[in-house]
């Protein structure tokens, strides 16, 4: 785990030199904390962890497992290894930080490969999903406000078992 963290940290530095889009805007007003966390829930409806799990494994939704290994989601095949495994992630991050990572992980990890799930503009040659057709900004965010609350609720269950 520690090793993964060091490798990822050096990736962030290497990517910082790459061409970047401007900052962009979000689907609703967002206030980030000092470390990229978002304390305020995006909706009034509490997140549903079961729906969150479904979003994470579904290709057309979060598709999170394409990059992250999650033991609790091992009913779905092909977990990637581009991002760190998310087992025990709720022991490392509080809810606000997890929400911030979903809204725009680049606020926590500048230059990260992880997509911003709630951002709507600031992209280079954005398309309408995977159709190759140009899209007008603001784009629909990759996940809705409620989707993000659901995923945060699921991630908050990922404690190391004791």
């Amino acid at each position, binding site marked *: 785990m520690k090793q993964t963290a060091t490798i990822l940290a050096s990736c962030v530095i290497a990517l910082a030199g790459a061409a970047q889009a401007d900052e962009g805007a979000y689907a609703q007003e967002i206030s980030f904390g000092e470390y990229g966390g978002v304390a305020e829930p995006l909706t009034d409806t509490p997140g549903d962890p079961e729906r969150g799990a479904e979003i994470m494994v579904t290709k057309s939704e979060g598709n999170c497992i394409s990059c992250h290994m999650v033991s*609790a989601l091992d009913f*779905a*095949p*092909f*977990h990637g290894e581009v991002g760190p495994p998310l087992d025990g992630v709720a022991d490392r991050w509080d809810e606000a930080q997890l929400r911030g990572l979903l809204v725009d992980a680049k606020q926590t990890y500048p230059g990260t490969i992880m*997509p911003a799930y709630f951002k709507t503009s600031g*992209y280079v040659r954005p*398309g309408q999903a995977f159709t190759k057709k140009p899209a007008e900004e603001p784009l629909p965010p990759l996940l809705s406000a409620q989707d993000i609350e659901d995923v945060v609720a*699921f991630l908050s269950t990922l404690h190391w078992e004791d």
Partner: protein
Amino acid sequence: MKFNTMTAAAALALVTPAMLAANPDAKLVVNGQIEMTTETEAPEHLDGLRTIRSGWTFRTEETQSLQMDDFDNPAMIYVDEARDAWYAKDGAADQSCASCHEDPESLEGLRAELPKWNEEAGKVYTAEMYVNECRTERMEAEPWGWDSQEMKNMTALISSVSRGMTVDVQIDGPVRETWERGKEIYYTRYGQLELACATCHEENYDMNIRADHLSQGHINGFPTYRLKQANLVSMHNRFNGCIRDTRGVPYEIGSEDFVALELYVASRGNGLSVEGPAVRN
């Protein structure tokens, strides 16, 4: 933990192609004869990688073996078709490729230095551009579409006669501006997923992204035969697919932007062997 109850197939489901990949020290020798350099020191201009590795080294043992003998390589059917086309007269001038070039083997070495500066045209030329110039100017025939079967077949033939030769694309002199443009594209993060070529092929190669084992994205094996498509795939077609996967809008196949990207990506593979037509999953 409620979610553990969903666990079923576990172990088996998690076996991914990368885990079945061949030993990274495996040697690529084609037809027991052509020895390929599949791993070597990165060219000096390339800061992001220390070692460059052919896409072949990232594939499963099964896919790798298909490239080791021309009888097993499904791309060779297309190379044979191109050989027939080579000798077939076409167009108002009643000429074939053979009328000017004799055998396809006369083009040995060309693939290793493409794309390159064409002094007369005053721009960087790819294999497709040379082929179409011969067709329209010398044969007075219709040009082939960049991504047409005829063109992919012919570029596969052109590549096949240079197999084993070292990729050595020029990056200085008149091509420099085009090369710089290609480099800019390579490091730009496109689409709603904000991914650059470098994000996947420089920062995360050798990792699994879902079921795909990421290579360094070199083009020394192009046109490649993709088992998934059961056909040859051109470089620009591959670039197009990779940018689409960022939820972005790709440049046109055959556009100046993709020619620039082709030059830059080719130069990242300087030192590897020409492998085309290679076999990929």
